[in-house]
């Protein structure tokens, strides 16, 4: 049984651990008893679970209004997409582009990329491992920018409170959208990129 070394998180003791751990066994440091992890624990499961949850929330996030704008008695509810269309139609195509990229494109791409990475890991693919790792890096770094939309809504709600003249309220959609962003970020964090390389080294 081939072994490799693992470092205890707490007492920094180097320990010999099996290269391929059994899925139902946990390793502990022989000196201090802290749990040892060769890879992120439950990485695959966690990523899948969080991705599924974010996919479920993705629907209400895009179909429920994220803002309710009242202006002199008239109330207008906007979803993310209707906001993009509104800005595009009124000529502010650059704002429309920013919102579209940050709020629609990025979460969707992130979910798709994570699904692709999970599938490739599941199938023990060894193709283009470097590219996949780069994809993961990019995904992880841009994920947080999706929160821009949530912050915009938060600032608008805080600033535009002019009583009966005008007001902005957060719609239920923003809650789900925030959920999607947070869950995909967690999913990206839960994914252990070393899984990409595990099989390759085995070979």
């Amino acid at each position, binding site marked *: 049984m081939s072994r490799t070394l693992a470092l205890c998180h707490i007492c920094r003791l180097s320990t010999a651990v099996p290269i391929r751990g059994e899925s139902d066994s946990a390793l502990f440091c022989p000196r201090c008893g802290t749990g040892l992890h060769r890879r992120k624990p439950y990485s695959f499961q966690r990523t899948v*679970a969080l991705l599924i949850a974010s996919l479920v929330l993705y629907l*209400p996030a895009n179909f429920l209004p994220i803002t309710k704008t009242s202006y002199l008695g008239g109330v207008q509810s906007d979803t993310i997409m209707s906001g993009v269309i509104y800005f595009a139609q009124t000529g502010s195509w650059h704002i429309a582009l920013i919102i579209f990229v940050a709020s629609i494109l990025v979460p969707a791409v992130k979910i798709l990329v994570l699904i692709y990475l999970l599938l490739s890991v599941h199938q023990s693919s060894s193709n283009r491992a470097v590219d996949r790792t780069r994809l993961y890096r990019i995904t992880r770094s841009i994920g947080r920018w999706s929160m821009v939309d949530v912050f915009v809504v938060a600032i608008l709600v805080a600033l535009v409170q002019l009583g009966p003249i005008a007001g902005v309220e957060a719609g239920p959609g923003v809650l789900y959208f925030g959920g999607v962003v947070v869950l995909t970020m967690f999913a990206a964090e839960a994914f252990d990129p070393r899984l990409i390389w595990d099989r390759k080294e085995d070979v």
Partner: protein
Amino acid sequence: MSEDSGSTPDYPAAEVRRKSRFSLVWIVPIIAVFVGVLMAVQAIVTKGPLVTITFSTATGLIAGKTEVRYKDVMVGLIETIHLSDDLSTVIVEARMDSSIKPYLLNTTQFWIETARISAGEISGLGTLFSGAFIAMDPGNGKEARSTFKGRNSPPVVTTGLSGRLFTLEAENLGSITVRTPVYYRQIKVGEVVSYQLRDDGKGVSAQIFINTPYEKFVKTSSRFWNVSGFDLKLDAKGVQINTESLTSIFYGGIAFETPVGFETESVAEAGTLFPLFRNYEKSKEERFYNRDYYFAHFPHSIRGLEPGASVEFLGFKVGEVVDMKLELDVDQVQFLTPVLFYVEPERVNVRGGNMVNGKELMETMVERGLRVQLKSVNLLTGQLYIDLVFDKTAAKKEISYDLSHPLLPTISSDVEALTSSVRTILDGLKKVEFERLGADLETSLSLLNSNLKKTDQLFANLNSQTTPQLGEALQDLRTTMDAVRISLGPESDLNHDARVALSEISEASRSIRLLMNYLSVHPEALLRGKDQSE
């Protein structure tokens, strides 16, 4: 690493314990799915009914944005707007709130609320910025509905507004429109709900709604008049302007009051019909707005009858003559003189029971012998009027409906009878030969002359023969006179009787003088008798 570094000391082996195959993280998607399913179920359960409303235009309506509101509370949202197949109407489909479903009834009304600015009021200003919305009013219906016909203007009478509806009828509309205010003692108590041309096109009728608690002031005898604009009077006292209120100057209005009169005042039932007069003065003067037109064919000359001549019934004026014509019936070679006149049925105060309609009433009256007769106002000028009389002896006749107005049966005029009798008298007078009368008088006078001569001779005889005997006779006479004096004395019966008789005679002669005086002033009294009014 460990394999190729045999020199390094052996690393201690990690402890191995068992662990769960599954991560707790699976709770996250389970919760997400649970929340999602819950939301979907809720959305399906709370999905309200879809209603179809047709409008003439879709002013300001936007599919997916325009709301349906009741009392400014959102109860629905427009989903689609499309044109009907024949392009005549706009069909709006709105998704209603499920809570409003029990109020989608056959009486439910929808209208488009936009900013409305009129002299009376400004409403819906908020829609200038927010855009139009569809307002609804449920009404008190029983039947559930899902298709509705949208109104063009907001209804005046909405659910929860209590009061009473009345109908006004007028010749012309004047400046009345929907929402024209109704005033009672210059307080706004109601509004015009709707107006339309009467079916026969001979007038307009308007529905008014009097709000609670003012509806009790509308009595059966109340008079309504138009107060559009103002009355300007310029006289010695200065300029006088009368108006109900400032808004009525620009916006028009209707006022009413209940004059003191013969009628017992009872609160008018909902739906009662009232005439609408042109102004306050007219409401005082003209009590009648309903006219029933009739024809009458007179078989004789109607010379003296003119348009405007009165139509009387039992001595009361009930109508007027409108026009008359001369017609030739070619088939029977007969000339007819149809006269058109009207009767104002409201001139008759109705007591007890319900007012039957004019046609039935007239039919029963004709059955009982009502006839049209021409009568003379003044014999000398020859003016005529139409009298509606009851002739119990007349042969049974019925109203004919062949003409444009009902034709009433006539009886021959008493004027004609009278003129013919006058004519006979005059003819008789013509036959008297006044010349011969003069000649006769001359002979009579000469005869008288000769008679007087004979009297002279008689007196001569008398002087010679009779005088001697006269002395004896006088003696006799004195004795007789004594006896007579006793019987004729101041205390005698005869004397008294004679005095009474004399005073009677003087009385009689004075009466004759009065009669002569009267006749000299009123020669017509010979024919008509003494005028009772004098």
